[in-house]
């Protein structure tokens, strides 16, 4: 287990290194020189150029610059947003909470509703099952931004149950503000988790070891808990983990739709303004979160399935 853990961690670090390089390097593909890029196309004064060159080590070779940036990033220094004249790390910490809360809330909905619906459909053939299959087929096709608009229309504009925009203050108000965005964000993934839960519950119910448990007089309720759910937890964890990780990027869309001040929405603004320091910083944070989530899923998978000790996730 320890060796598996170490190897997985080494892979994590390697992926983070390569992705940080790609993020840093890709912005140098932009047409025009870095000064123009950094100042968003305005013509800076010669002093400004000198200061920017020194601040961003532009007189150093590319690899050295990357090294210095990475060193800064590891210590929490992601440089300065030129248009805003603010530390990138400050800009990020101000908004990371909103995105994190949104993703967390959506994950909760995905797990509770998705697994619940999947279980219901898996254990109850017939009308219940058909209903769940139809509902999830449709909700799986509802992109987050369309779901957001529909929720906005029905629950904010028409019914007035939830506010249409903003993040809210304090716990209760935050929950009120975040409910619609979280549902919109989790809409597709919830359906995916429900369908995987349904099919793996079906599959496990038909397994021979369930027959053994039946033949030994274990009550059905316990068979479901100890054997069916426990074993189905392996594929469910995998799909839930992967789709929840993907929410980190999709959050941008939902934040936009509900005019929330989160990381994703800010990344989009920064990209439109060509505020490269901010784009680099946020992209790095989001990719790191995504990669770490995926690693956690892999580790969970190994914990849940005693047959996986050597690594290599089953496809």
């Amino acid at each position, binding site marked *: 287990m320890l060796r598996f853990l170490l190897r997985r961690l080494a892979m994590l670090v390697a*992926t*983070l290194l*390569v*992705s940080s390089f*790609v*993020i840093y390097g*890709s*912005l140098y*593909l*932009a*047409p025009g020189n870095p000064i123009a890029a950094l100042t968003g196309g305005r013509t800076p004064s010669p002093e400004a150029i000198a200061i920017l060159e020194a601040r961003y080590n532009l007189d150093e070779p590319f690899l050295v610059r990357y090294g210095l940036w990475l060193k800064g990033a590891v210590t929490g220094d992601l440089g300065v947003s030129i248009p805003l004249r603010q530390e990138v790390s400050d800009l990020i910490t101000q908004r990371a909470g909103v995105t994190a809360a949104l993703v967390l809330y959506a994950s909760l909905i995905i797990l509770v509703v998705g697994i619940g619906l999947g279980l219901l459909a898996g254990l109850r053939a017939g009308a219940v099952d058909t209903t769940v299959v139809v509902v999830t*087929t*449709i909700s*799986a*096709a*509802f*992109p*987050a*931004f*369309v779901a957001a*608009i*529909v929720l*906005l*229309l029905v629950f904010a*504009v028409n019914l007035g149950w939830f506010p*249409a925009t903003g993040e809210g203050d304090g716990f209760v108000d935050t929950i009120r503000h975040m409910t619609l965005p979280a549902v919109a964000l989790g809409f597709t993934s919830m359906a995916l988790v429900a369908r995987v839960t349904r099919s793996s519950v079906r599959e496990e119910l038909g397994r021979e070891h369930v027959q053994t448990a039946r033949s030994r007089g274990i009550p059905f309720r316990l068979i479901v808990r100890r054997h069916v759910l426990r074993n189905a937890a392996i594929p469910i964890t995998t799909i839930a983990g992967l789709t929840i990780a*993907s929410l*980190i*990027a*999709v959050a*941008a*869309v939902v934040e*936009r*739709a509900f005019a929330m001040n989160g990381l994703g929405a800010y*990344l*989009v603004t*920064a*990209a*439109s303004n*060509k505020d*490269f320091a901010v*784009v680099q910083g946020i*992209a790095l944070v*989001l*990719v790191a979160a*995504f*990669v770490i989530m*995926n690693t956690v899923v892999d580790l969970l998978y190994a914990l849940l399935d005693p047959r996986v000790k050597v690594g290599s996730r089953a*496809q």
Partner: protein
Amino acid sequence: MSVPGLRGTGLLGHVCAAVIVLALIVGAVGAWIAPHDPDFVDLDLAYVGPFADHLIGFDGRGRDLLSRLLAGARTSLLGPVAVVAVAVTVGTLLAVAAAWFGGMFDTIVSAALDVLFAFPGILIAIVVAAVFGPSLRSAVLALAVAYTPYIARVLRGSALRERAQLYIAALEVQGLAAVAICVRHLIPNILGLIVAQGAVLFGYAMVDLAAISFLGLGVQTPQADWGVMVSEGRNGVLQGYPLESLAAGLCIVVVVVAVNLLGERLTDRAQRGAR
């Protein structure tokens, strides 16, 4: 009655295929069959409901909604087609090459694909938009890069299994060139899976591309596009005129449902065929 390419997908598969084909035709000719000029602005008609031959009314700038939906089908549908075409072509080439050469080449390709997996498609699109400026072309390029590893990884597995088949060895012994074996035998034998994967990805591409346009980083206003329309209609939603967003959103959902259902059936069929 059964269309050869859809054998074994059932009635639902045929219905879905019909919806998709219809959507693609609209995507190709929509701008020409639009009853009105989709870009003609008349602010006096903003948010006016269905009227005469304006079947679903006007948007917030007084443009004819139906015409904009028809015209917007082009980027909304042909954009994803381009993404899938690039990703499937590159992905298949990489997968087959990796499976064929194996060894070091395979290791490098697989490692590179693993790194690409660390980047969600929308994130790549945002970074590309920052670098090259927001445009449909940037978005298509970004999504093609993001989807290639998915295609390549799935196909590499099947290509490897196919590569190990005895008939391939027999062809090699007969002195056939590697390219000829791959093009004439190996790729045709995994074609079912390639098509199924393409269909599944088309659904994802459509959603992601619309999302990118929704964010303002894909198709640019005032051009009509379903993703852009959902975004532009958001103000109308808040003021109680939801028709633009809903109509565009519904178009997206209907096509995606059809694509997902067909993709599922094609995947089932490909897996049944592999057994």
